[in-house]
């Protein structure tokens, strides 16, 4: 097989960067900041190179590199990307430098350690998306908990210890059950294939042959782990705590990329490894997804804290993604992938914007604000665009994802009912209610607090540099989504084909 080192360079750039940053002195804050930014930009450039060399018509994994790591268990360092993971890799490398840049003023405490954690986290996330060995995947999946835990715990808000512990234990609970399932699967596969293997490509052949009842348990174990990460209702309770207590950068990465690891896992593992169970449980999962959409939206509506509002809106938006995945049509799954990117961009932008206000006033309660359009017009405009993108206004990115998901779920033969679509569509309306209402209360009307006039200043150059690229892609995806849909089409079809061949009988 042809070996390609590009992905390895991509993965090891932040790893090496994070190790190097440890050798800085504590006082060299500015140097650590620049260093982190440059390392993450290098990673972004490498991911762009991969993007331009990627062949979107080929549904197979590309840029494969495989070398034996643990011989006694036949585990190899095996990486590669298809269209779906490539998009998420790009999202990761795109958001990381921007979040690093956004924290230049907000993070003053222990900058060195913060940069270390962020780069380490980036490596972990990239590893999750590019691993083609289920064991390697698990290691990255777990290892990236540590930096996130520190980011929430050290630089977070008042209840940061509670939030970070809850985050850690909640996720650990799901992933350890998944570990048992992974071991069971590999032991089973070693009986089938005659060798102990953890390679995903081999396991794809074995998974669907697992006896029906056991497959249900396996699906359950994997699903639970991913559902906690997404999070799917009713496993979402760690999310608001983690989001609210995390520093802005933490929230952006958490919402932007970490949650996508859950939905990515559903696409990459749950569907192709256990197709029969996935089809069997699809209606049940979709009910949870729809409940999540409506519940998240309703809870968002009554929040008085801006950050919490955006956090709960994530539950709602991710519900769409899960619905799209389990509708299992080409449109809906592609829509789900695009929606993953969209949510990363628009919710990331919203968290950044909340962070910008918070940096200036140290208040996040909506009631405190009002009429800031007169004080910070530029900020108000950008908040408008980000909110509208999150609502799903046609012409901006959110619309494309939600439309494709609703369209796909409507004609899905797996769900076989349009009630899902109808209820999910109400989520779009609710989104408009809570976001526009928040916007109205913050931006319009008379200036409520006199102190706002002194404290608030409009966005500075650095903040603009952070926001403009995100807005650029928000518009790009909205106007010409083909650039991105094209990437995922072949890969999506190949996954659905894998599901389809094993479940033909079930659907009749």
């Amino acid at each position: 097989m042809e070996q390609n080192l590009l992905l390895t360079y991509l993965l090891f750039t932040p790893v090496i960067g994070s190790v190097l940053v440890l050798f800085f002195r504590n006082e060299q804050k500015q140097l650590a900041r620049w260093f982190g930014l440059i390392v993450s930009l290098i990673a972004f450039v490498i991911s762009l190179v991969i993007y331009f060399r990627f062949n979107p018509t080929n549904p197979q994994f590309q840029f494969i590199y495989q070398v034996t790591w643990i011989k006694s268990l036949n585990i190899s360092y095996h990486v590669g990307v298809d269209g779906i993971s490539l998009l998420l890799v790009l999202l990761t490398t795109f958001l990381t430098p921007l979040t690093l840049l956004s924290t230049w003023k907000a993070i003053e405490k222990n900058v060195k350690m913060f940069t270390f954690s962020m780069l380490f986290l980036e490596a972990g996330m990239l590893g999750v998306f590019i691993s083609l060995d289920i064991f390697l995947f698990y290691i990255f999946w777990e290892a990236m908990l540590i930096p996130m835990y520190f980011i929430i715990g050290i630089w977070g808000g008042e209840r940061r210890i509670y939030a970070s512990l809850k985050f850690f234990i909640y996720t650990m609970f799901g992933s350890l059950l998944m570990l048992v399932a992974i071991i069971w699967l590999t032991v089973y596969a070693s009986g089938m294939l005659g060798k102990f293997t953890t390679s995903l490509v081999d396991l794809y052949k074995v998974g669907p042959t697992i006896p029906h009842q056991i497959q249900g348990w396996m699906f359950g174990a994997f699903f639970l782990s991913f559902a906690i990460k997404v999070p799917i209702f009713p496993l979402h309770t760690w999310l608001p705590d983690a989001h609210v207590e995390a520093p802005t950068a933490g929230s952006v990465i958490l919402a932007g990329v970490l949650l996508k690891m859950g939905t990515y896992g559903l696409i990459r593992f749950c569907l192709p490894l256990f197709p029969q169970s996935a089809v069997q449980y699809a209606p049940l999962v979709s009910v949870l997804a729809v409940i999540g959409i409506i519940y998240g939206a309703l809870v968002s509506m009554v929040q008085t804290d801006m950050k919490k509002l955006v956090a709960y809106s994530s539950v709602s938006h991710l519900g769409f993604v899960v619905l799209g995945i389990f509708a299992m049509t080409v449109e809906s799954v592609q829509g789900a992938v695009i929606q993953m990117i969209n949510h990363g961009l628009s919710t990331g932008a919203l968290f950044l914007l909340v962070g910008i206000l918070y940096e200036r006033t140290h208040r996040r309660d909506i009631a405190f604000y009002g009429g800031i359009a007169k004080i910070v017009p530029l900020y108000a405009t950008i908040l408008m665009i980000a909110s509208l993108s999150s609502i799903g206004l046609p012409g901006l990115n959110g619309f494309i994802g939600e439309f494709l998901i609703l369209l796909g779920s409507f004609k899905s033969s797996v769900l076989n009912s349009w009630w899902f679509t109808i209820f999910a569509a109400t989520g779009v309306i609710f989104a408009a209610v809570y976001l526009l209402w928040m916007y109205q209360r913050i931006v319009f009307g008379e200036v409520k607090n006199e102190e706002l006039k002194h404290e608030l200043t409009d966005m500075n150059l650095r903040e603009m540099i952070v926001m403009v690229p995100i807005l650029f892609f928000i518009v790009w995806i909205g106007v010409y989504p083909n650039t991105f849909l094209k990437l995922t089409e072949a890969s999506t079809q190949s996954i659905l084909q894998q599901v389809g061949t094993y479940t033909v009988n079930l659907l009749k």
Partner: protein
Amino acid sequence: MPQNNYEYFLLMPQIIIGIGIVLSVIIEITSKKSEQILPWFSIAMFLATAVYSILDINRNFVLFGGMIEVGGKPAIFNFIFNIGAALVVLSSIDYLKKYGTYYGEYYILVQSSVLGMMVMSGARDILMIFMGLELMSICFYVLAGINRKKFSANEASMKYFLLGAFATGFIVYGIALIYGTTGSTSIQNLSENFSVYSTNIVFILGLIIFLIGFSFKIATVPFHMWVPDVYQGSATTVTGLMSTTGKAAAFSVLIVVLTAVFGSNTHNIVRPYFATISALSMVFGSIVAISQNNLKRMLAYSSIAHAGYMAIGLAAGNAYSIAGIIFYLTAYAFMNIGAFAIISIVEDENDSRVDLNSFAGLHSKSPILAAMMALFMFALAGIPPLAGFFGKYYVFVSAIQSNLTWLAIVGVLSSVISVYFYIRVVVVMYFKDSVEDFKITISSFSLAAVVIAALFVLVFGIVPDTLMNVITSVIR
């Protein structure tokens, strides 16, 4: 089988330590500078033995008419015992000075206990096992009370002695029953004629009593009562030694005895036993550790839980699980010795500063100690890619191979519980500000021991093959 006059050469690891003990006694008697010489001398002996054992690993023989095995599995255990003991001695040098309790006996006793362990791991005869066990245990009883001016140390020593003697009584009684029914103490004989003996209820009773005695020694529920008080009261570095190498020695015996049983395909009679105590230990250890504020006590309960994880391997009882247990024991030795060494650095001469509050804000007092402690805690919690994770992974795989998936699930659930108390240490070190204002004097020897242990934890985590290949090569 080698010629008789070669047999002594093959026994070289035990001989090195034996000569070391004698020379240490002479040094202690004759030299005024023994306080400076002895620690380094014993470290040299340990390293020589460890290196010799590993180099000699492929010369695997049973010597003296089936009494003791050299090379192979015993060689790996010798490596664990000796490297572990060397690290403990390194971290004890300044610790003993801090307490003002330098006694030359300390190093002699550590060496003697290691000799006992080496006899245990090599023994192929039940009486040899007993000899090694007694040599190790008696040294431990004394070592536990080495801070003899401390009330808690005396209590620990006494408790350990009484309960340990009780357990030993069990083992002797088991041996008596086994000998009474089989007329032999040879494990070889046991394994060859197991199917004949296993019909005899008295023999099975003897075997079970023997196993119960060793369940005391590896500290599994419900035979764990002595662990928290003894671990808390003993000198910290000694606890590091007892909880790792002592446990490894007891496991080495169980592996040898049970291999005799596994070999004849009738391990089903002990599987329910080990599955039960393993599940109980994991759950009990993890849950009770949550409420501990004293770090030594917390690590004591965590050690009960870890014994439970390792006992999964005993319950699974396939070739893979033995490799898994040995890997786990090695990883656990380095994680725990490292953690106890850090506690021994932080604690002061009044036996205080061993609770969670003393670790608050350690990050700002000593970044390196905090980082190392965090590493050990994450490793003990089983977060990849650190050595502790692979230990758990190997035993879980063996459990699932033996259709004990439920045990693996109990294992991961108690891992989740255990994450809470390990992470709590990280929380206080990094997220909380210091409560007590004191300055830590970091001994460079102890720090060296910590760093070496951390390196092992990292290396065995990132490239587990380095260790696993050696283990599988001797298990075949």
